[in-house]
């Protein structure tokens, strides 16, 4: 567990003092976490904060932001503020789910590949093949062939991310399995599942959490791109990508339809990336040294 033995994480004193010290030493984690928390609250309270995002009001179509409509209206008179706030739900759902799915599968496959040479040879060739296909292309091909739904989008975005997680976990396992404490565990007769779960798995967690944040950020961008290209979540769901895609035709006349969901998407992805960078610096000083 040397990976988390970073100075920045070792703080002493009362709980309040420890939290304050931790926040001071890791400002990026705090900024990222707060921004993300804000987006989560917006997503949860969207229905209470705004009117129905699907409500058509042709009389008020293409209203400029501010005229009784904070973010203006779109070509059907729908409230862009309501649609932008509701869009956060899909983005966060897809981002967090894709991170969870790809991490879970990547961790399982990576652990097995790092410990079994035959499995490693076969699986890694397969992973290399998937990594050679641009992730956006693979995701849109999968969605277009299986039909658009939020579940399919999550699966389609997760599949191209799995090889990256597998590679990361495998590299950690290959290093850890040669450590004396693992050899000691083998010599006292510990069984493989116990070695994997008790000695190797904890060492993969720090880089895995960092990787999960990057997968989450990348998944949110990919979801928006898929919806933007017309191969993502169904058009009746107000995701940020869908709202931006619908606003394309009216871009020159009503840029706010694209601008507001775009800003929200950027802030959310930025929050996750900042959080990821902060966690990397705090949890995995080896990678942090390489990136700093």
């Amino acid at each position, binding site marked *: 567990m040397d990976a988390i033995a970073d100075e920045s994480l070792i703080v002493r004193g009362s709980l309040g003092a420890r939290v304050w010290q931790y926040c001071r030493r890791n400002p990026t984690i705090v900024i990222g976490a707060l921004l993300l928390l804000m987006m989560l609250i917006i997503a949860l309270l969207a229905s209470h904060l705004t009117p129905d995002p699907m409500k058509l009001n042709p009389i008020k179509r293409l209203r400029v932001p501010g005229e009784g409509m904070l973010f203006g209206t779109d070509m059907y008179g729908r409230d862009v503020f309501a649609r932008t706030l509701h869009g956060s739900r899909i983005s966060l759902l897809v981002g967090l789910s894709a991170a969870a799915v790809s991490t879970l599968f990547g961790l399982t496959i990576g652990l097995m590949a790092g410990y079994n040479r035959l499995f490693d040879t076969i699986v890694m060739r397969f992973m290399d093949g998937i990594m050679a296909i*641009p992730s956006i292309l693979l995701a849109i091909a999968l969605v277009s062939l299986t039909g658009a739904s939020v579940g399919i989008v999550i699966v389609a975005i997760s599949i191209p991310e799995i090889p990256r997680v597998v590679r990361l976990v495998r590299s950690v396992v290959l290093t850890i399995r040669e450590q004396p404490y693992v050899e000691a565990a083998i010599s006292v007769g510990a069984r493989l599942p116990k070695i994997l779960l008790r000695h190797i798995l904890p060492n993969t967690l720090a880089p895995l959490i960092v990787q999960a944040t990057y997968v989450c950020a990348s998944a949110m961008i990919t979801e928006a791109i898929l919806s933007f290209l017309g191969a993502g979540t169904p058009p009746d769901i107000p995701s940020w990508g869908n709202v931006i895609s619908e606003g394309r035709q009216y871009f020159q006349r009503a840029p706010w339809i694209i601008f507001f969901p775009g800003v929200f998407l950027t802030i959310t992805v930025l929050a996750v*990336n900042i959080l990821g960078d902060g966690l990397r610096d705090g949890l995995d000083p080896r990678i942090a040294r390489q990136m*700093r």
Partner: protein
Amino acid sequence: MFAYVIRRILATIPVMGVVAIFVFLLLHLTPGDPAAVIAGDYASPADVERIRETLGLNRPLHIQFFTWAGRLFQGDLGISIFSKVPVIKLIGQRIEPTLALATTTIFFAVLVAVPLGVLAAWKSGTWIDRSVMIFAVLGFSVPIFIIAYSMIWTLSIHLHWFPVQGYKSFLIQTGTGIDGAAIIGIGFEGVCRDSGRSGCGLVPFFRHITLPSVALGLVYVALIARITRASVMEVLTEDYIRTAHAKGLSSRVVLIRHALKNASVPIVTVIGIGIALLLGGVVVTESVFNIPGLGRLTVDAILHRDYPIIQGLILIFAGVYVLINLLVDISYTFLDPRIRY
């Protein structure tokens, strides 16, 4: 060295083999009848049957694969279901704008990112360094289409510096041959080779390609600048850098000839890995800027469920990625003489 190159080339075969199997199985992995999936929701039973016949989907799976793979080796990627044109021909018609966009983007990204990364490493801990790092995080966080629309809004619609959309070829008709056919060449401005209208050449080409290249390149700049900064910073702590300074060499010479040269392996590696990011971004950029390249062809094929085109394009994109990373791996031996295989 030669043995290494051969070994490395051979190593690409299983990767492309896996890509081919995956691409072939893509349709069969989807639930339901593959012919019905391609035909779409409103197709008649006759349409479904026609597609099944055309693609040979009524034959055993392994026969289908070997027939498809056999054709692939002969350069036959199948025929488009929608337009009835051979896929390889469609790709040939659309490849120029994509190649032009990718090439200009790589040039732009490397020319901006490497100096930025070196500068950030040299001025480590200063506001220059922090600005470059903030830019790098932002570059990863702003989706391409948001950057693209922001640039169109300010630079095209308001300032009128660039056209809003479209693509103009750098190839023009430079004359007429004795058989009456047009001679094609590169010139500053002239008549387009296909349409016969004016408005092609290097000047219109750069006016049209600048915004898409910058929009697509920013994420790439962020990636390369970050790695350049990290690897140059690591090299700057080496003893030979101190020696170079002690010899009285100027900072510029130390940075370029000693630090950057020795930091080049990770930089070239990330340029290779980033190609996947670039190729994915091409699809979005071409859609936003209405560029008639392979990215637009991909989106059109996916919306029409034109499976042979999707298969062909995934294979081409994956092939380019594998080829560029092969060249990157081979370049290591030239960049760093210490690397011997």
